[in-house]
């Protein structure tokens, strides 16, 4: 269980390798990578700037990660969230989950993303080709996605 908030890029394969190194009990590894899309709302995006709340961010990510380990039999996990200005095509976020079985790894990774997107103090600002910029609005779909996990056992 580790979380990082950083400006640097990450490498999913290196993170997987670090999580399972020396272990012989991991059977399933799921990763989610979020990437800056260039086609936001029909306007030409050139960059996404990620602001966060230092201090709170790590604590919040650690709490979300701990909750995922309480819900599923995870052997290891990793959350990396980038901040600062990121060009189109850049990685934003990486979540990795390791479990003996695939369903738990899939469920936990989706849970982590749904909670991260609605609970962790990050904010995205879009900069467009015409020089304008705007703060991204929170999505009702993200709230609905998170609420799924409060209505089922999640197992």
């Amino acid at each position, binding site marked *: 269980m580790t979380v990082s908030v950083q400006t640097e890029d990450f490498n999913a394969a290196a993170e997987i390798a670090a999580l399972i190194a020396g272990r012989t009990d991991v059977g399933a590894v799921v990763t989610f990578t979020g990437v800056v899309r260039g086609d936001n709302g029909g306007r030409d995006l050139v960059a996404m700037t*990620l602001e966060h*709340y230092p201090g*709170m961010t790590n604590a919040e990510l650690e709490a979300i990660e701990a909750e995922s380990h309480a819900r599923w039999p995870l052997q290891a996990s990793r959350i990396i969230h980038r901040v600062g200005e990121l060009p189109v095509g850049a990685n*934003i976020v990486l979540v990795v989950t390791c479990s003996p079985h695939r369903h738990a790894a899939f469920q936990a990774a989706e849970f982590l993303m749904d909670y991260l997107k609605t609970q962790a*103090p*990050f*904010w995205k600002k879009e900069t467009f080709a015409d020089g304008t910029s705007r*703060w*991204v609005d929170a*999505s009702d779909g993200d709230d609905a996605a998170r609420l799924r996990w409060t209505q089922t056992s999640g197992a």
Partner: protein
Amino acid sequence: MAETNTITLRYFAWVREKTGRAEERVSLSPSVQTVAELLAWLKSRGPEYADAFARPGVIRVAIDQRHVKPDTAIADAREIAFFPPVTGG
């Protein structure tokens, strides 16, 4: 009864841009007891605050780096942060 509580206020994303500052230290009147009362007081502090806190319902608040609700008591908070709904990931 007359003592004041000096705390750090922090602003993020468009709340920061509208207030024109990332953080400040303020002394709160003892009459400001809850998050909702603090939001109402902030809104009264000038045009930039009136703009930032025009719709208090969309502002999220964290006390000492934990999410709180409008009816949460400020109590002996050291740091209170104000920000829009989060949009990371």
